[in-house]
């Protein structure tokens, strides 16, 4: 006899796929319904600005699970379907078309959507943003073999897209509001290392500037900045951040602009209703409340949420980790440090091969960032998760194994 319970997952994303796979691997034999707005089965988004954009990987290759997996594991999928309403009291969701699905537990993994640029001409043909597989396909087609492209924003998406387009032979110009590349997350010192990499690769960058308007007769011809620079362009790609897709929580008070608030176990204030992935603002035991948009976080939150839907009560204390590939260079980052007091470098910024450790005022390691420096970011996980104050000389010494800096007691 099946358990007779129904678990609904809204968001056919990495988080959603990770959750349903975990539910099945943990032995849940009730009904699972996985609902997603896109027509595609869940896929990995990181390749959309990299291999997939460049045409080096097929759509099938970037699926989280083979398309047939869901039916094989008795997961009822509704792709290309919007959920229009959450009825928290009635423990049900309503789908576009009117179907009502009752749930015993619900996971909201609706992710985010791209912020729109508020500039005249943003509706012109040739102005794109990148969120889904279809966007990547459209950009690949539009840039052909060597378009003139303006990347608006040089966060991770902008920097990765700029790198991919250079590798595809495009002429690339960046317009970025901050003073250097990736400034908001990595700060000026590391940002300037990446800026130099992109400059060496032939990317033109305009910092401390924003787009004033997109010009063209029906189709983009030129991007004009507030600083007065006019850049002739065939294509513009806007990457200026995302906002969490919280609309489903309308009426519950949880549709907050900074994400759906969840506690240590990823459950909302509505019992049995969980949120995970980009849409969730979770209460982290070390970092406090935060919302991140990392691949690894989406995967791991999906797993933890699934176990907690089954009653595990597991605290999500992942140290948060992500990578970015630009040209032949891999950047990694772990932890969370919106600000820091001290940066200790192992390796060399000048040689573009290092791991930088970001410490707060009390000397606690909050974050580690590396460029072309394997292992040490992942080896800092336990130090970050346990808010350790490591010796700065030891951090700077490449011969010291970071794992030896974790105190033994309490491990």
């Amino acid at each position, binding site marked *: 006899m099946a358990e007779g319970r129904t678990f609904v997952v809204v968001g056919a994303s990495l988080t959603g796929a990770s959750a349903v*796979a975990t539910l099945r691997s943990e032995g849940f034999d009730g009904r699972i319904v996985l609902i997603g707005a896109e027509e595609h089965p869940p896929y990995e988004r990181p*390749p959309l600005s990299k291999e997939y954009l460049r045409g080096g990987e097929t759509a099938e290759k970037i699926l*989280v699970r083979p398309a047939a997996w869901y039916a094989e594991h008795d997961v009822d999928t509704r792709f290309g379907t919007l959920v229009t309403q959450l009825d928290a009291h009635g423990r049900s969701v309503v789908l576009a078309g009117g179907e009502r699905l009752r749930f015993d537990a619900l996971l909201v993994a609706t992710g985010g959507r791209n912020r729109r640029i508020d500039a005249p001409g943003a509706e012109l043909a040739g102005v794109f943003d990148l969120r889904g597989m279809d966007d990547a396909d459209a950009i690949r087609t539009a840039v052909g073999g060597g378009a003139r492209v303006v990347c608006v924003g040089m966060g991770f998406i902008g920097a990765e897209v700029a790198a991919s387009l250079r590798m595809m032979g495009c002429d690339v110009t960046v317009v970025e509001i901050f003073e250097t590349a990736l400034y908001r997350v990595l700060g000026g010192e590391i940002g300037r290392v990446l800026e130099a990499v992109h400059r060496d690769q032939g990317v033109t960058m305009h910092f401390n500037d924003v787009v004033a308007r997109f010009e063209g007769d029906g189709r983009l011809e030129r991007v004009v900045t507030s600083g007065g620079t006019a850049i002739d362009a065939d294509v513009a790609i806007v990457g200026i951040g995302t906002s969490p897709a919280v609309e489903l929580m309308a009426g519950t008070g949880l549709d907050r602009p900074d994400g759906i608030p969840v506690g240590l176990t990823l459950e909302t204030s509505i019992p049995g209703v969980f949120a995970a992935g980009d849409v969730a603002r979770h209460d982290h035991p070390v970092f406090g409340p935060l919302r991140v948009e990392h691949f690894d976080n989406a995967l791991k939150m999906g797993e933890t949420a699934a176990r907690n839907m089954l009653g595990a009560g597991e605290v999500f204390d992942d140290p948060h980790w992500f990578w970015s590939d630009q040209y032949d260079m891999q950047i990694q980052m772990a932890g969370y440090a919106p600000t820091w007091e001290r940066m200790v470098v192992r390796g060399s910024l000048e040689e573009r091969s290092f791991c930088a450790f970001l410490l707060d005022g009390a000397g606690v390691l909050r974050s580690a960032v590396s460029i072309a420096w394997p292992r040490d970011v992942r080896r800092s996980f336990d130090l970050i998760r346990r808010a350790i104050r490591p010796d700065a000389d030891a951090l700077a010494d490449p011969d010291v194994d970071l794992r030896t800096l974790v105190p033994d007691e309490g491990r």
Partner: protein
Amino acid sequence: MAEFMTVGRSDDIGEGEAKAFPVGGNEIAVSRVGGTLYAFSDICTHRACNLSMGGEIDATSITCECHGSMFDMVTGEVLEGPATEAIATFPVRDEGGELQVEV
């Protein structure tokens, strides 16, 4: 019929290390933990990174440096995603200082 092929010297691989060898068109990694040798496909089933290049070995697991997939070097099974498919594993032996893998 599978047979043991010599891929290198046993002392090429230090304790806690993994190294890849080309074997019959495949890239096979051999690692040594606690004196025991393990042989497995060097290619991560997630995005085809080489596990031996920066992969972190902890007991009998290896974690891919690129995206964090963790595999059991004994069975090949996925211990942590994003990978969902196991890696192949192979018998391996030290034959008088020669490193031999059965493929």
